[in-house]
Structures are given as C-alpha cells and as structure tokens.
C-alpha cells in the first residue's frame, strides 16, 4: 500500500499510510480504537463504505500491479479474504455447508436441462471433501457436520477462516480481532493455525488488541495512531511495553503534559460507586468501584467494549443497572434518569445523534429543554404556576450565550440541530448540560468523530468549566492522550471493572499496559 489516505466528511482518518507485505508473512496491526485500522482494511477489501464516502487516495499494489476494487467481490477474486469481528454464518447449516456457501460443487440433474444451472443439485460428497481440505489446511480440529448453532465460539471462528481459505486463490487473509471472543486455549489453536497458513505461503494481516499474540505469531508489527503508521517493528525485537507506548501516545515528555499542574485532590468524595453492574450491549459493566472527589477531573479510559461507556449510561439510568451509587453520601436510585438529573448530575452522551440531540428541532430547544423540564427554567408562570409557558426570550438568550461562548458555527439559534457539523453538534450537547448547571458532569466520548479544531475547543471548554466553576467532571474517552491533557486522575477499565487508577502524569505506557489487561509485573 502506498500513500493511502482517506477522508470522511472532511475529517482525515488516514494519512500517507505505506507498508509492504511479503508472501507468507504475518503482519500484526495494532492501534487504539479510531486509529484507522478498520478503514485501512476496508480500503484493501473494497468495501462499499469507502466508495460511498468519496473513495480514497493513494494506491494499493498487488504483485506490483495496481489494484482498485470496486466491491468486496473483486477483492475476493484477487485472493483477499477477510474475517470480520462479527460472524457471518448461517446458524442452521453445518460447518461444511457454511464453508462452501454459494460455491457448492454441483451435480447436473435432469431438471437443470430445463431450468438451467439453478436446478443443479449439490454434490454432498465433494462438498464434504473440500470442506475437510480447508479445515486440514488450517490445521484445526473441526467437525464438518456440526451445526453452526451448536458450536462454541471458537469453532465458529474457525469455520469463518476455513471458508476464506477454501477459496482456491486465497493469498492474503485479513483477520480483524479474531481472538477477541475466544478463550485462551482456542486463541492458542488459532495462532497455531495462522502459523500453519503462513508456512503454506498465505500472507496474513492480523489485527488484535492482545499484544502478546502479536509477539507470538507475527513477523512484523505496524503500530497505527491517528491515521498514521507510527512505527514498523520487527516482532522479535520489540516488547509489549514498547508497542503499548507507541499505541497510546506521543513520546512522554513532549509539550504541555509535562507542564500540567498537578493539583491537590480534595478529600471530599462527591460520588461513590460500589459494585456497579450495567447491562449495556457491547459495553457491559461487571463490577465497578469508584470514588470521585470534589472538584476533580476524572478520566475513564480503556479499549472499546470493555465497559467504560457503560458506567455513565448505567448511573444515569439509560441502561439497566444495579449496585450502589451515592452522591454526597446520599444513595441515588438507579434506572431513573429524572432523579439523577434532579440531584444535579448531568450527562453528555457518546451517542450524539441518538441520545444527545433533538435533530429535527431548533438549537434553542436542544439547549434549553432539559433545564426547562428538570429545573423549570426558561418558563413564565401564569395563574399561580398552573400554566407554565415557554419563555421564548430567555431561551433565545441562553442559546445565544452558549453559541458565543463555545463558538458554535450556525446560521442562527433557530437552525435545526441536524444541520450542524459533528463538532458543533457536540458543543450543543455540552451547552445543554451546562444549562443544567450540574455539580457533577459525565462526559462520554466528547471528541468522537469530530475534527481536531473542534476537539481542542470542546476540551478547553470542559477544562474551563472544571477549573473555574469547580464542577466535578468525569470524562470517558478512548483517546488516552486527551484524558492525560485534561484530567487529574485516570481510571482504566478492562473487562467491566476498573483495572487501575493512576495520576494523569503517569507515563502513557503504564496506561497501555493496564488497558491490555496486564499488570506491570507480567509485562516485564
């Protein structure tokens, strides 16, 4: 791949990506969420998304010839196979049937003379044989007659991979986090299978968050961050620590992080969370214990799917949750957004468009709505409070105030929220929470999907709000660097629980190690 670059709606997500992959090599690809790994693979695989959002820059060369895939089918023909994180298997079919789906060996029958090839029958014997061939090539034990619905996850994964390698021309296999769902033993088997494949001359691109696996199986490692390749390493010569450091941040000691003041923490605990569980799909929280101090800026980081986003969603009552949450020593009932908001908590959701905004309504409504409903602000009262009339003027004023303060780009406060860009929408979400004047503010992924300029503004606004108004802020973010810029302490969530809380001034590799679920000792 040469100078590959890609923009989504004007936000560059990939810049000048160059790498080479030889035959039979195993390449590890690591990086934080949003580093551009998936986009890169989508380009390679010719996914529709790329075409629909304006194509990409640069070239993809295969055997020295430029390849441009209009669709995944073209990529398949060129011998590229991809196994996604989510399974795409038919549960009611056997492994063998799934492996050769839509490429079944066929027998001609009498009917096909009349109805053409559609009436061919499936040659079950050859099907079985070919499936077993693919499974043997992979080098795992898998019963071809087993129904997918009855398989353990690991075997499903093997079925997927077998399907890819059963394609005759397979030369390059992309595995997107194949081990994420596997148990340790299954993962081991898979790694062995990968080695097997590479020995047979199939190149593999292996995406994973488990750095140990990279060391075990890969020849080369590419570390990506912010749409760039940060470094290309020889797997034999690197260490988990080095990769973790490259993955999460700039070199320690550059810029303002060093100069950041380290503030003394107040002893007073504002919010204490005990044994919190949250049933949020994809972000399950299992057992979180956390204390937030008065006036601090606490960061919560971790890899996607580990449960960091579930924490605020659970506390604010958006997903079913259990455990004890105490605000200033008073327990607050869970699963009830109203009581949380009334007790001066506020939440900026990571799902801007789905939860955060009334897309079809004006900015005024978006900013003023929660404050109006919860605190009876921006209302004129008639007949002794029996009629609560919307105070249009007050709403306009407060919206204008935040438009100026947060530099929101819009035509007027009457513009509809859906017409704004992502960054400005995010600012509206912040304004909405600021209008509630909370004592404690949860901010979830405030910079997801917005450009660098807006990112800086949003973070600045949050910092100011914390420093000047003394509002306690808990910020959840996938970007560690962002957390280190703003926060006093950072908690890392792995597997639904807090794996450690460190001061923000701690070197980023320590956080990286916490993220991949290892304690410092193990890594060494």
């Amino acid at each position, binding site marked *: 791949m040469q100078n590959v670059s890609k923009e989504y709606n004007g936000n560059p997500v990939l810049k000048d990506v160059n790498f080479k992959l030889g035959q039979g090599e195993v390449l590890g690809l690591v990086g934080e969420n949003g580093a551009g790994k998936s986009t890169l693979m989508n380009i390679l695989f010719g996914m529709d998304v790329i075409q629909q959002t304006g194509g990409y820059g640069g070239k993809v060369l295969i055997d020295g010839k430029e390849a441009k895939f209009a669709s995944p089918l073209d990529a398949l023909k060129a011998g590229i196979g991809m196994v996604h994180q989510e399974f795409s298997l038919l549960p009611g079919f056997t492994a063998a049937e799934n492996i050769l789906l839509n490429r079944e060996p066929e027998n001609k029958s009498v009917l096909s003379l009349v109805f053409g090839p559609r009436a061919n029958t499936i040659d079950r014997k050859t099907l079985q044989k070919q499936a077993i061939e693919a499974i043997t090539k992979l080098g795992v034990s898998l019963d071809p007659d087993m129904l997918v619905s009855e398989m353990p996850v690991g075997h499903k994964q093997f079925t997927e991979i077998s399907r890819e390698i059963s394609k005759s021309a397979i030369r390059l296999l992309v595995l997107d986090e194949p081990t994420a769902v596997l148990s340790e033993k299954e993962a081991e088997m898979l790694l062995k299978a990968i080695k097997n494949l590479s020995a047979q001359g199939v190149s593999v691109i292996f995406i994973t968050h488990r750095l140990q696996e990279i060391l075990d199986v890969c020849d080369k490692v590419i570390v990506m961050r912010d749409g760039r390749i940060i470094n290309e390493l020889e797997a034999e010569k690197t260490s988990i620590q080095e990769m973790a450091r490259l993955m999460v941040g700039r070199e320690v000691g550059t810029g303002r992080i060093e100069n950041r003041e380290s503030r003394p923490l107040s002893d007073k605990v504002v919010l204490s969370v005990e044994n919190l569980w949250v049933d949020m799909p994809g972000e399950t929280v299992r057992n979180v214990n956390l204390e937030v101090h008065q006036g601090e800026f606490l960061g919560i980081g971790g890899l996607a799917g580990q449960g960091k986003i579930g924490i605020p969603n659970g506390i604010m009552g*958006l997903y079913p949750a259990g455990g004890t949450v105490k605000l200033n020593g008073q327990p607050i009932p869970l699963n009830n957004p109203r009581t949380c908001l009334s007790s001066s908590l506020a939440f900026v959701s990571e799902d801007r468009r789905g939860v955060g905004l*009334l897309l079809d*309504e004006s900015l005024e409504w978006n900013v003023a709505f929660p404050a*109006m409903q*919860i605190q009876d602000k921006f209302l004129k009262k008639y007949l002794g409070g029996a009629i609560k009339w*919307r105070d249009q003027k007050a709403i306009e004023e407060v919206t204008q105030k935040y438009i100026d303060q947060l530099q929101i780009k819009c035509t007027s406060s009457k513009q509809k929220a859906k017409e704004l860009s992502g960054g400005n929408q995010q600012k509206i979400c912040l304004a909405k929470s600021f209008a509630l004047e909370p004592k404690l503010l949860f901010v979830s992924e405030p910079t997801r999907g917005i450009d660098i300029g807006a990112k800086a503004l949003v973070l600045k606004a949050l910092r100011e709000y914390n420093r000047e108004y003394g509002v306690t802020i808990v910020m959840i973010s996938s970007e560690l660097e962002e957390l280190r810029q703003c926060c006093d302490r950072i908690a890392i969530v792995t597997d639904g629980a807090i794996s450690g809380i460190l001061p923000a001034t701690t070197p980023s590799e320590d956080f990286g190690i916490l993220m991949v679920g290892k304690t410092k000792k193990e890594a060494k």
Partner: protein
Amino acid sequence: MERIKAMLRSFGLPRLIIAGFLLLLFIIAPFVGIRVGASITDTLARFGMNSLMVLAMVPMIHSGCGLNFGLPLGIISGLLGATLSIETGVTGPLSFLLAILYSTPFAIILGWGYGKLLNRVKGSEMMIATYVGFSSVAFMSIMWLILPYSSPTMVWGYSGNGLRTTISTDGFYSHVLKDFLQINIGTISISLGEILFFAIFAFIIWAFLHTKTGTAMTAVGSNPVFARASGINVDKQRTLSVVMSTWLGAVGILCYQQGYGFIQLYQGPMYMAMPAVSAILIGGATVNKASITNVIIGTILYQGIVTMTPSVMNNLIHTDMSEVLRIIVSNGMILYALTRKSGASR
C-alpha cells in the same frame, strides 16, 4: 430558480397538485352552471364540521404515536355522550354542552387504555390503531343494541329497545353552532359559530404545545431517547397525548353531528378516520410533525375537493366520478405520507 425549487419543496408537491386541482374546479364551476357562492358555503360548512376531528390528529403526531387511525374510539366516546345527552331529555344548546360533558369521562378512560396499548407496540402504532378503531366499532355495534336506552327519539319503533342506526339531533343540538353568528355575504353564508368553536380548540392546542408539558410531548415525538435521557416519562406523555386526541375526536364528532343533523351509530364511525388522516396530510403534516396551520389548510383543501368534485364532475361528464376521486385522493394521500415516513428522521 433554486429558491423557487426550495419553496416548492417546502410547500410539498401533493399539496400543490391538490390546491391546483381545487382551483381548477372553482374556475370550471361557473361554466357548467354551478354557483361558486354555494360551493364556497358548502366547503366552509364542511370545514366547520370536520376540522375538529382533523385537529384530533395533532397531539398524537406530536408525541410520536403517529396518525390517529384509532379515531373511531374517540368518536364512540362522542356517540356515547350524544346518546346519553338525548336520553336525559334536555333540549336545545344545553344538550350539546351536556353531550360534551358526558363524553369526556368515556374519552378519558378509553383514551387511557388505548394509550397504554400503544405504549406496548411502539413502532407499529398506526397498524394497531387501525385495528383498535375497527374492533371498537364492531364491539359497539353490539352494545348499541343491548344498552338500555329508552328515549323514543332514539330506539327502534317496533321493538322499543336498541338504538336506531340514524338518530336525528333535531330539537336537541342540531345546528347549534351552525346557526350561531351566521353571516351572509351575497350568496356566501359563513357560520362563524362553527369556526369560532374550532378556533377555541385550535388555540387551546396551540397554547398547550407552548407549555412545559407540551414541549415535553413534542420532544418525546422528536426523539424519545433524548426525552428519556432528559428525565421525561415517555410513556406518560404518550398516554396523555392519546387521551387528548381521543377527547378531541369525541368533541369533533359532536360538532359534526350538530352540522349534519344526525347521529350515525353502528358502522358510522368505521371509516371516519381516513378523511381526517388524509386531510391533515394534505395540509402538509408528516407522520411526526404537525401544526395547526396544517390542520386548517388540509381541511379546507380536502373538504373543498369533496364538495366540488361531485357537482363539477357530474355536470361536466355526466357520470358519478366523485366517489372514486375522493377515495383516490384520501387513500393516495395516506399512502404517499406513509412512504415518506422512512425518509424522515425520527
């Protein structure tokens, strides 16, 4: 050119076609021997009779419950109020007020249950609402026979029990609003009473949508997840909107009866929802956005078509095309709006 295009888009193509068609009818009318004055009078009279039932769509659209295909439920509450009022024997304008009063508890109870039901079927409200409307009509067809009414103006003459299919409101509240403040300009006569009556309710709804609760209701319809995250009890708001819609339907049918002069029982309410639904859609409302202006424009356009096509078309081609055309317009409009639903962000 771009601006004209944008304006056209905001006005809506179907609305434009229908308005153009109506205009054409009015232009043709004098040439085929129809007095325009009488046509306008008719249109306005029908507006007065039907507008409240169209207004009954607004609260449910605002709370995201979709179009109120369950309008027959509100109508049934109105019918219960009407028959009870006549049963008491009170005559004159007072019987109209009494009918509204009697229908209110029914509207609240039925609307509450209907709302609870709709909260369980989020996403397919309109389909369920249609069935609620139809099945309630079927149920009430039995009840009209069984309920122990005894007023001689209403029961079957030969058996002495069971209500007749059509009951005259003569002597009770026939034309109470229609004849109130009627003004005549040339051949046109306008019933200010009916229009005023509608205006009062339209104002109440408009004002309600400007209050804290009304704002919450609109937010629930616009983005229920947002509303929930802002501490709104989504189900409660939806139920409230359904109760309001049902009650407006009840008052709407009473208003219709006083203009029409008859109470229609049994299968009468069956297809009452369709004209109201298509009227508000012609007015420019979508499945999740509606305003009072939509109600007014829509009712005038729809009722205008219904009034004008029979007379003009019949005189023009001497066949009865009107019913066909009316069905095409009303059902076509509903179909059009429902296909646009997926395009609108919710």
